[in-house]
């Protein structure tokens, strides 16, 4: 098992390095896309380099995801504590309902309410990202067997010790899987951000579709797909790393 883990981690790291190399290999892109679309005048979007698009994308996703985790996990924990218990049904119902909202619609709605640009988009991604993280945190903590908590209390642990040493370690796999979902949605929704001028990998896709330049579309779509799969597999490694070994 541990050998498989080592291999999986090695493959993920190699994948990440390959991705970094690939988005900087402008000549390769130019060559391959020219071969595919010999009739097009431009095959790479002149507006920015591919690496810039990726960085813009990462800035959107990274900032919103960090905010999401920083707020979502404590919020989820709080409503499972005595002090936040009365907000639990509100938060659970809110996140349940929120997750049925299509992310694109939420992003679009943020514009009339919050305005256009980078920070309103971050706000929209952050709010939407909260739903899976908060509900996974609540679900993870509430799935911890009562007997474990009671044993901890019985051994004289304070409630914060029970939380840090028993509940969170046992809930961490579920919480990380919630973060994984949240990040995957954010990467996808951020491509749509191009439609509201936030940059990112959506720019070549949407721009390419608008001017019927399929090379642009591929310039955005391929790295976006790779980025999503890469981020997901990195978080999958985190997920299995925090999984408490079960008999």
């Amino acid at each position, binding site marked *: 098992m541990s050998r498989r883990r080592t291999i999986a981690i090695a493959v993920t790291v190699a994948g990440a390095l390959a991705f970094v190399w690939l988005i900087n290999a402008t000549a390769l892109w130019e060559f391959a896309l020219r071969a*595919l679309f010999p009739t097009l005048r431009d095959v790479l979007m002149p507006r920015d380099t591919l690496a810039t698009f990726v960085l813009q994308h990462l800035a959107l996703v990274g900032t919103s995801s960090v905010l999401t985790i920083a707020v979502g996990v404590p919020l989820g924990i709080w409503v499972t504590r*005595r002090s936040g*218990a*009365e*907000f639990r*049904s*509100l938060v659970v*119902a*809110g996140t349940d*309902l929120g997750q*049925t*909202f*299509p*992310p*694109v*619609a*939420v992003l*679009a*709605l943020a*514009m*009339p*309410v*919050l305005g*256009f640009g980078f920070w309103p988009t971050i706000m929209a991604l952050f709010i939407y990202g909260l739903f899976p993280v908060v509900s996974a945190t609540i679900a993870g903590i509430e799935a911890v067997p009562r007997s474990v908590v009671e044993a901890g209390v019985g051994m004289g642990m304070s409630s914060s010790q029970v939380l840090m040493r028993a509940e969170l370690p046992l809930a961490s796999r579920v919480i990380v899987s919630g973060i994984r979902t949240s990040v*995957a949605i954010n*990467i*996808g929704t*951020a*491509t*749509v951000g191009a*439609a*509201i001028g936030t940059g990112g*990998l*959506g720019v070549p*896709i*949407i721009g*390419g*579709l608008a001017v019927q330049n*399929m090379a642009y*579309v*591929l310039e*955005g*779509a*391929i790295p*976006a*797909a790779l980025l*999503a*799969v890469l981020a*997901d597999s990195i978080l999958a490694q985190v997920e299995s790393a925090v999984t408490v070994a079960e008999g």
Partner: protein
Amino acid sequence: MSDHSLQTRFDRVALVGAIVTLAGATALPFVELRPNRLVPGTVHSLADAGVWMFATWGLVALALLSAVAPSAKARSAASSASAYGLVAVLAWALGEAASTLLVGQTSVARVSIGSGAWVILLGAAVIGFAGGEERKRYLLRRLGPPVLVLAAVVSAFVWGGLDDISLAQEFEVRAESFWQLLAGHLALAGAGVALGAVFGVPLGLWATRDRKVRGVVLGVTGIIQTVPSLALLGLLILPLSALGNAVPFLRDLGVRGIGAAPGLVALTMYALLPIVRNTYVGLAEVDPAVVDAGRGMGMSSRQLLMRVELPLALPLIMEGLRTASVLLIGITTLTVFAGARNLGILIFEGLGQFAPDLILLGALPVIVLAVVVDVALSALAKRLTPEGVRE
């Protein structure tokens, strides 16, 4: 937390709701009067709406009263009344504000909903959840209050001048195409779910019968699900147009790089994961003893599948269809980039023109649609659950 402990304490949920509502009512723009639908204009607070402001204050006071009410029932009743009352007041106040502000303006002037109104709505929702668990049961049991709210909003439309709000005017201008786009939206998303089921259920079934297939099917559908929908759409256009060009018959059927085809293919691929996974889990979770007993009593594989395994897996398969449907209603908006026509057109045209009302006209129905489909399919799944295995 028992009801008892809640009764003896101050209900902070009601307090938070009241604060949010007050913030929306006083600190944020309630409506915005603009010379035409695209340019910014002057903002007006709810305080300008006189009587409605007092009504809002009253309802917030009621919410705060509910926080200290002596019994759970009283808390529940007071907070509900406050929440539903706020929604009704909001609808009427918006209508009246619009009608009043438009007096003496040109015909292209618009009054649009400000952020304050949305915040008041949020506050009302929070107040609605005050009163603890009792409240939740009340919501589930009684359909009455939501009907009252609907009546209030409709009446605000008909008599209260809510139709002077820019969103309503935007709708009026585009009424005809709106319904077409809505129909296109439903048709495309529906077709995606249907195709997803046609491929997904057999794939899920196959995955239970063969370990290798399971790894491949679940792995591949999982990766598809991770790929951003816009990227998948972009990746599909090229192969599909190549396919359409190579096989004229398929092109005549609509297999082209641009149009509904790439959208439908992408939607189908997205629908696969929840459907395949839930079908697989549903079938795999059927107690092996039940299958053994069925076979031992002389059921053929087909009879076993149709009479035992599928009925027992049905609730989970339905859950997969529900997840897929909600997902696809959102993703369908993106297919407009490949030339499909649906509510996404309103959203992205609106974003392109910086026209907030147009964005709302596209995004609000998409959200409502997703929620309605979610609720409807949950109810259907419940009905289709065999009685003996119902919770």
